[in-house]
């Protein structure tokens, strides 16, 4: 009785309400749920913070930011406002990503087919370890390798051949430079291979064996079997490619180190350029003086964020739908 008097009335009331309900299980459930909700807080705060910080730039430049082609944080005439336009950056991001997909996807699909359809299992285990190692190498080391090994090779061996044979195309004209958009695209192609090939391999492996058995029973060759597998997993492969695209769009360090970092609307792939990610990496730490400069870089980050989320969310949706289709087909069997 004596202790009861010390407990305030509202606590007693609370205890009566929760009596028999607040078990260890529900407490555990609520606690882990709150922690699992960190994801809402992180993404929400991220979006809010970045929008808040790029507000100055959004208000100053409006839609012109997306269409402008000059990037002048420190104009020569001090009375003129600094001008920022992100179109060349978006252009650079799109072109490098397109090169990466053009070169990386066929190789990735080849790897996925070799591992899931053609190669023996034992071989499979070792080789997939090596392919996965490609994704474990930090991007700054890809960049370093790009500068010192890849660029000399491309500049003096591959690019001159390209220009001699395909020079009639505008994209292969002009002076050959080592650090260029094409180099950036090639490095990105190497970097998306592990992502695209690993997911495609899993998708091919999920194709029901009845499909293979049916076509083999009709007397198909191994390649014809592989084609059936590919067409069955088509939508999943498209998802894998989109994930690769997401990686290429957001990749920062390696591209920054090999793309040449010049701000222009390039037409030739041998010209240097910039991407959304590379300009932030390159200029952010030095962009302290005019507040609008840092805000403009924030807006570049916002565009990148939006682009990456759209690409990745649609990739996930496609993969999710295609694996569901496979699962349903198996259930019907």
């Amino acid at each position, binding site marked *: 009785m004596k202790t009861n008097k010390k407990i305030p009335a509202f606590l007693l009331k609370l205890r009566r309400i929760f009596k028999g309900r607040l078990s260890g*299980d529900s*407490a*555990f*459930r609520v*606690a*882990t*749920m709150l*922690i*699992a909700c*960190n*994801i*809402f807080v992180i*993404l929400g*705060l991220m979006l809010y*913070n*970045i929008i*808040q*910080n790029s507000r100055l730039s959004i208000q100053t430049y409006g839609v012109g930011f997306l269409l402008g082609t000059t990037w002048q944080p420190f104009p020569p005439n001090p009375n003129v406002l600094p001008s920022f336009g992100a179109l060349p950056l978006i252009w650079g991001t799109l072109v490098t990503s397109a090169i990466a997909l053009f070169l990386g996807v*066929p*190789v990735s*699909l*080849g*790897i996925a087919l*070799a591992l899931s359809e*053609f190669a023996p299992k034992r071989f499979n285990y070792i080789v997939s370890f*090596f392919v996965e*190692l*490609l994704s*474990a*190498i*930090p*991007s*700054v*080391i890809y*960049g370093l*390798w790009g500068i*010192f*090994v890849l660029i000399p090779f491309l500049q003096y061996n591959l690019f001159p051949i390209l220009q001699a044979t395909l020079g009639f195309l505008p994209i292969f004209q002009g002076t050959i430079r080592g650090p260029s958009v094409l180099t950036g695209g090639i490095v990105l192609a190497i970097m998306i291979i592990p992502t695209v090939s690993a997911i495609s391999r899993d998708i091919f492996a999920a194709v029901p064996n009845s499909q293979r058995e049916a076509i083999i029973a009709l007397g198909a*060759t*191994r390649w014809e079997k592989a084609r059936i597998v590919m067409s069955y997993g088509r939508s999943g492969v498209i998802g894998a490619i989109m*994930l690769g695209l*997401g*990686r290429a769009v*957001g*990749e*920062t*360090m390696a591209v920054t*180190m090999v793309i040449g970092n010049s701000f222009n609307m390039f037409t030739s792939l041998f010209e240097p350029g910039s991407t959304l*990610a590379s300009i*932030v990496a390159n200029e*952010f*730490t030095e962009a302290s003086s005019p507040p609008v400069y840092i805000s403009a870089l*924030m807006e570049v*980050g916002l565009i*990148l*964020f939006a682009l*990456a*989320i759209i690409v*990745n969310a649609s990739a*996930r949706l496609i993969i999710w739908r295609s694996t569901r289709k496979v699962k349903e087909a198996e259930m019907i069997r």
Partner: protein
Amino acid sequence: MRSYTFRKIKNRIMVSLAYMALIIALIPLASILIETILRGLPAMNFSFFFEEISPLGEPGGGIGPAIQGTLIVVALASIIGIPIGVLSGIYLAEFRQTEIASIARFLNDVLTNVPSIVLGIFGWTLIVVAIGWSVIAGAVALAIMMIPIVTRTTEEAIKLVPTTIREAAIALGVPQWKTTLTVVLSSAKKGIATGILLAVARISGETAPLLLTILGSRFWFSGFTEPTAALPLAIFNFSQLPIDWPRVWGASLTLILMILLINIIIRYVTREKYG
């Protein structure tokens, strides 16, 4: 109907193209590893790992502060990221049918694919604005990168635990939360450890988020609210000037060896599970 010979030849060509794709992908890997070892080994000696970084452009000097900085930032990020990641993973696996779980799972995948530079920007808006370039800002940015990876792998590991084990514990009268925290977690611990190692390997090589948060420095660690050095940042800075070439390869070899070691441990751990 195409002739059988034509189909056979086409089959040969396509299958060998697929194998060729494998070789094409392994060439860059081999080249990166060989070049780094050949160019990095000569730079490595005892003092290289323990000396301060000399100013950019001055020959000599080691990478001591960079190694120290990387270890500190990664450790701090792990302290923040691992508990959050593991507990979120437990929720997603144990209460997988709830609406919150399925939304959180989707957002988790989204966060995994947010470009690393955007995480750097976020770290900057969150912490650098308040207290300046600092170790804490870097650790938070890396922790945010780590959380979705750990969450995902923990969830997958727990899902693999056979229901029979869980039922056995519950039949003995153990409450569900205790079953999860003791029986289920301990049978999923290998999978969870793999996920944690994977996340650590991934964040220790990250450069972009650190560039905007810990800034980099030449000196030894001097406090959690101060800028510090890190291996990937040092590699990026060294690569800008020709005079630093031996150092940059030495630093790269060190970083690759660290990450390779973690990856080999992962392979070892997962191999035992299937063997």
